[in-house]
């Protein structure tokens, strides 16, 4: 690249960030001696998992470090000017005008009490002298460029009227309206589903190219790195592991950590094996329709909205079936209905041949033990006031076994998930990956016939994802439970499932064995989903 010759747009030179306060001797800095350059117009990725310091690096550019954390050494230069020496007012002139930032969570980064128009105008009023008419004209033009449907209406609308993807596009509009030279995007699409993610990122690339802005993409997702950036910087625990062109890092990683990251992209786990048709059917869903109640008025019930329309599905004993779809496709709702957590409006669901709605109390008791759920969010799925041992034991409370056997079973399963010494901990004392292991232990401790796993690894870092997924596969092989694996991530599907069901808008649009659906997708929506999954492309590149 030309970066080496010309003055870089952004230069990190020996930046070191530490937790302030009592600096304990020997405690590692949060970011250690980080140096790199970004050339004008260049797309650079900062890759790392949680705790790698990637977000701190991004925030230190704008001097927006959280309380209790400070930069103790190094220079951060923008076009040769040291940002760390700037006074507050000078820094404020840089923020927004020269360097724009897009945050991870579109639900909270827009002010819910202000119209979109006012939020767009805010930056222009601060940094440019423009009349109200000009501001409006600029705003409308920019909303059109981020492909909002009705820009005029959009100006007077509030954030809650838009979906996550649309909000992120609005955010992008607000940031690019000021024509910054550098755009920092901190996990801009982590909260979005595959299709919205693609939409937002393509738009970001296109607009940044048009404006000649450089992009610093902070992400944990190597798939995005492969697809959208030219160069990448890999961080682990605050240290620079490797930097180079994206292609080199993906195809020829030199650092052991980078190699592990790239390996996790390839996926070390083999796909699930198809089960013979002779295996009994555990779950049989026929023409399932599921509704959400509408908002009731004072005297009348609300009009219900149907979210699942006539779905058929069979899951055989020991089979792993993946359900994929975007948010709002009804996949989670269907999973809940199969566990009898949501009533059907029409149709039927049978478990081992018995219809859920017609179970006797004894059958229901048996069913509750045989069908378990693993949730997406390991933070909300564990009761914060119970110790790990009690959380896992809760599933066994209704089993007909004595206390000693129950304790033995809990210890055994904790050992199996690699948490043998964690029984007395509270959830908040564990990492996300460990919590998810607890959630899995809770589900398998009663030897279920069926486990519904709802995005079980989506909240985890890539290498942790691989570990948890491997554990899940191992336990599945050992106990032979049938599994409904609900996810939006096609890359995961290929690693775990034998059969895949694609849902969109509450109906099944395609279903079949994983290889045939992936290699020869019939439905337009499946093709779109496959095309929008950068990890698949990157995996093809690295293997």
């Amino acid at each position, binding site marked *: 690249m030309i970066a080496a010759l010309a003055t870089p747009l952004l230069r990190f030179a020996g930046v070191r960030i530490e937790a302030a306060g009592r600096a304990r001797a020997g405690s590692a800095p949060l970011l250690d001696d980080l140096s790199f350059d970004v050339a004008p117009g260049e797309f650079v990725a900062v890759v790392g998992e949680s705790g790698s310091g990637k977000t701190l690096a991004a925030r230190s550019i704008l001097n927006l470090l959280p309380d209790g954390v400070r930069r103790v050494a190094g220079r951060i230069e923008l076009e040769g000017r040291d940002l760390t020496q700037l006074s507050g007012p000078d820094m404020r002139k840089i923020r927004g005008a020269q360097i724009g930032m897009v945050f991870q969570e579109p639900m909270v980064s827009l002010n819910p009490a202000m119209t979109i128009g006012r939020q767009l105008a805010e930056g222009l009023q601060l940094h440019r002298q423009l009349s109200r008419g000009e501001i409006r004209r600029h705003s409308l033009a920019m909303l059109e460029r981020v492909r909002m449907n009705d820009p005029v209406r959009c100006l007077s609308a509030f954030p809650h009227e838009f979906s996550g993807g649309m909000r992120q596009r609005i955010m992008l509009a607000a940031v690019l309206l000021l024509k910054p030279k550098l755009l920092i995007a901190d996990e801009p699409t982590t909260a979005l589903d595959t299709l919205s993610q693609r939409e937002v990122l393509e738009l970001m690339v296109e607009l940044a190219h048009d404006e000649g802005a450089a992009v610093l993409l902070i992400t944990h997702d190597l798939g995005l790195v492969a697809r959208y950036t030219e160069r990448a910087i890999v961080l682990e625990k605050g240290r620079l592991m490797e930097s180079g062109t994206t292609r080199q890092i993906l195809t020829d990683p030199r650092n052991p950590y980078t190699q592990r990251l790239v390996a996790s992209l390839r996926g070390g786990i083999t796909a699930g094996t198809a089960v013979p048709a002779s295996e009994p059917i555990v779950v049989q869903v026929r023409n399932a329709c599921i509704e959400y109640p509408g908002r009731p008025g004072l005297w009348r019930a609300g009009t219900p909205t149907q979210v699942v329309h006539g779905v058929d599905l069979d899951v055989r004993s020991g089979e792993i079936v993946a359900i994929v779809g975007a948010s709002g496709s009804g996949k989670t709702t269907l999973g809940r209905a199969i566990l009898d*957590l949501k009533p059907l409006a029409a149709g039927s669901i049978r478990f081992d041949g018995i219809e859920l709605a017609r179970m006797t109390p004894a059958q229901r*008791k048996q069913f509750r033990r045989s069908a*378990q759920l693993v949730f997406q969010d390991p933070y909300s799925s564990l*009761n*914060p006031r119970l110790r790990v041992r009690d959380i896992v034991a*809760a599933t066994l409370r209704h089993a007909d076994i004595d206390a000693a056997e129950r304790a033995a079973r809990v210890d055994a399963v904790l050992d199996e998930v690699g948490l043998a010494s964690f029984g007395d901990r509270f959830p908040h004392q564990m990492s996300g990956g460990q919590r998810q292991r607890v959630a899995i232990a809770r589900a398998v401790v009663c030897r279920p016939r069926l486990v519904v796993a709802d995005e079980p690894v989506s909240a985890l870092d890539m290498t942790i994802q691989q570990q948890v997924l491997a554990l899940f596969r191992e336990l599945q092989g050992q106990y032979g439970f049938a599994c409904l694996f609900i996810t939006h991530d096609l890359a995961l599907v290929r690693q775990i499932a034998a059969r895949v069901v694609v849902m969109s808008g509450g109906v099944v649009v395609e279903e079949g064995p994983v290889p045939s659906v992936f290699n020869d997708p019939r439905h337009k929506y499946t093709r779109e989903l496959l095309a929008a999954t950068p990890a698949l492309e990157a995996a093809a590149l690295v293997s």
Partner: protein
Amino acid sequence: MMDRLGHVGLNALVGIPLVGALLATIGIGLFWMPYDPIAIDLTHPLGSPGLRHWFGTDEFGRDVLSRSMLGARISVLVALATVAVAITVGTALGLLAGYLRGWTDRLLMMITDAVLAFPGILLALALIAVLGSSDGSIVLALSTAYTPSVVRVVRATVLSIREREFIEASRTAGDSPLETIARHILPNVLPPVVVLATSLFGWAMLSESALSFLGVKVPPPAPTWGNMLSESRPYMDVASWLSIVPGLCIAGTLLGVNLLGDALRDWLDPWRET
């Protein structure tokens, strides 16, 4: 377990001795008091504190120390009973409203909001006017006035807890709704309730004093701290100890109970263990 009790915070350090002293006073008062707290001795009215009467005597020559000791029993009993009723009823209704939602919730909220619309003391006065003035009716009146705020706090907490996924996990484990509430919701609701209970205890004690001041009181001659305060008013300039002693009793008790409540909340908090 050791470190759960090991770090005694400042809250507990001050709160426990204060509440301990209160309980000791009540305990001793059950068996022994320097004088008969309602025995009138017209030869020594408004006697100042001294060796014979440590805290002096009131306008009828009754021993203030003895009266305070008996008053502690009655005041604390009234406040405790009030809080117990308000917390029990309020928590139960709050759990119902928050967990069941729908019509139960709407109906309960309408009633609570209606009760909340009246100033507590006014509501208590009105109820006592109907029920007649006795310790039982004071408890009933005050707890009626306080229950709605408990319902509100509990319901709000339940609403945030019931959407968490571990509630669904409890259902898939086969727990009945009652088991889910008892094992997973109630423990998460308790910390704010404990804090609320201790502050309600303070309010109950103050309201009992205020009601006494307004003339609605535990029937004389039985003393409560509130009674003693209200009766001391005409003699404030000549016999200040008559107001200072029950005043200090009330202040010390409130401080102790509130600090103990904060300490309890900290002990219940699993995040203490890091």
